[in-house]
């Protein structure tokens, strides 16, 4: 039996808890949240204990895995503490707010010889896996122009941390990092980034970014990220790859097996919206199952720590481009922060 401690009882903590609970060989032992009520609620559902800090969890429970579902600024210190205690670590994306932290985290985990996987969950969405396989099959020829979209209403997290763009990095670092990682997985390294966004426009609770990526392979990708939709707008997730022999399109809106509309209750508040994918085993569970299997069999997770760092590097290049109004060369190491 593998024992897991989850840090954070927010949207992702809850989602991951459901997944761990569905695996017979895993036991959720502890939930850490500084909001005791939230921690107890979630812990209660899985006959686990709730703790106020990772220290308390590590002291009271013998866990094998620490799963970090906390806001980005808390990733580094908790990765360090978990690594120090020799726990294998699954950490939500993005790995960190800056490259220095990200690299230190990777280094520390390597030194402590613990597994460290960033939850770039798009790699476990069957439609994205299928798209990658089609691209590799040559059915659409050589890939050329790629378009992705990812959009929801503005997320409401603890202390409204998403609203503080210095902490969250806005839609570019928190949201379309999924697409950056997926595109890099399919098309290799990014050479150049140009971006326009609402980041520096002094607007509250709205973010929107249009990113152009040029890959070393020549592929041009357009990545749209939106936290600009009104509450209640369905999650938008789209991928289009045009190649020399064809085109493929993945569109969440066109592949939803059912739609449900409910009367809005007054004062109803949305938290963080994540795409719902009705499958016998949802992508989050596939992701967690993979990590659990790697821990059990002592093998390397398919997402390397370096992948998490590279995705952040692309996002930081995009942020830099927004700031300077210029194209940013990733390969030349222009991305420093």
């Amino acid at each position, binding site marked *: 039996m593998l024992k897991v401690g989850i840090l954070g009882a927010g949207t992702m903590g809850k989602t991951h808890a459901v997944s761990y609970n569905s695996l017979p060989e895993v036991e959720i032992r502890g939930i850490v949240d500084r909001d005791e009520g939230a921690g107890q609620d979630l812990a209660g559902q899985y006959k686990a204990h709730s703790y106020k800090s990772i220290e308390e969890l590590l002291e009271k429970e013998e866990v094998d895995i620490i799963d970090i579902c906390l806001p980005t600024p808390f990733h580094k210190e908790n990765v360090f503490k978990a690594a120090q205690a020799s726990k294998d670590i699954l950490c939500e994306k993005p790995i960190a707010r800056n490259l220095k932290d990200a690299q230190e985290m990777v280094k520390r985990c390597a030194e402590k010889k613990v597994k460290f996987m960033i939850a770039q969950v798009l790699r476990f969405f069957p439609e994205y896996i299928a798209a990658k396989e089609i691209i590799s099959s040559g059915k659409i020829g050589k890939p*050329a122009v790629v378009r992705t979209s990812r959009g929801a209403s503005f997320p409401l997290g603890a202390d409204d941390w998403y609203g503080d763009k210095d902490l969250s990095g806005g839609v570019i670092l928190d949201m379309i990092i999924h697409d950056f990682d997926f595109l890099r997985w399919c098309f290799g390294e990014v050479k150049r980034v140009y971006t*326009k966004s609402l980041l520096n426009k002094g607007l509250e609770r709205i973010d929107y970014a*249009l990113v152009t990526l040029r890959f070393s392979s020549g592929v*041009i990708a357009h990545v749209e990220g939106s936290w600009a939709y009104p509450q209640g707008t369905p999650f938008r997730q789209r991928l289009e790859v045009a190649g020399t022999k064809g085109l493929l399109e993945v569109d969440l809106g066109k592949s939803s097996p059912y739609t449900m509309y409910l009367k809005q209750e007054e004062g109803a508040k949305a938290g963080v919206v994540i795409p719902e994918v009705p499958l016998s085993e949802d992508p989050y569970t596939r992701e967690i199952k993979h990590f659990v299997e790697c821990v059990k069999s002592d093998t390397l997770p398919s997402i390397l720590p370096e992948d998490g760092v590279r995705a952040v590097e692309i996002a930081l290049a995009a942020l830099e481009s927004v700031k300077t109004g*210029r194209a940013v060369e990733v390969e030349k190491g222009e991305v420093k922060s």
Partner: protein
Amino acid sequence: MKVAIISFAHMHANSYARCLGKIEGVELVSIADEDVKRGEKKAREFRTKYYQDYQEMLKKESPEAVIITSANAKHKDIALSCANSGKHILCEKPIATTLEDAKAMLSACLENEVIYQQAFPLRYSPPVNIIKKQVEQGTIGKVLAIKGTNHGVMPDPQEHPFFTDKSLSGGGAVMDHTVHVVDLMRWITGSEVREVYAEVDQLLHDNIDIDDCGILSLEFENEVFATLDPSWSRPKSFPTWGDLKLDFIGDKGVIFMDAFAQNISLYSDLDGRVFWNFWGDDLDLLMVRDFIDTVANKANPKVTGFDGLKALEVALAAYKSAEKGESVKIKNQR
């Protein structure tokens, strides 16, 4: 009203000829085309006279108005001849291949007091007009950003060779498709583009030697930013010719527009592939009809040569940006 068409190099000439046939009181008086075979065939098809030399046609047939659908680079000489002989002009986009040519065309029309209308049929699209009204009424608040696409299948190099011949077209996909979207963005926001960044390349087709894809990033004078994708990235098996989509991001809401969404999906074993058959308004007919009315009433054209020039300016800036690897500024009159 006597109307002539000069050149069938651009396939839109076929549609415009059909439209003229549907408008009462209008006669397609002749077709001029330097390509004898094509010109004679089209003259037969549309039951009108054929001239190889458009100058001769202008003199002998004296049409009141002319539709120019030649290769882009030839717009200027033809437009100048038309203007100097007092003919009103509806000219295919892009207006020309250089700003100098475009300016020469506009001055000639101004001097000779002839109407010059730029053929931007999307201006007549009912969905586009509804969206424009919604944006102007502030329904989605202040517009902050726009995302546009005008994808297409590459024009067949055998059938319509000028599109992929840079000396005649001035550029490939970016030249061909940028102008439509930029025109709509300018028209709907009422603001001019002041900065352009673009990635432009030839990645999709190897039987040509011209750009076939790109992504443009634009910044407008009113701080709105936008991207647009003019790529010839639809494969031959795509259910339709392409698309024109615009997303408007406002501070009070968003609009997702697909100007050609009014389709029937057709699955026929006779075709062996899926087709989307458009049932929305015939935009070319609305446009040509409006041009005829404008000429009849000596009115101001709905879409001007200046509009054509400003759209071309952005396409040219995109090429320049791609060449330099940095953004290019555009100076606008205040």
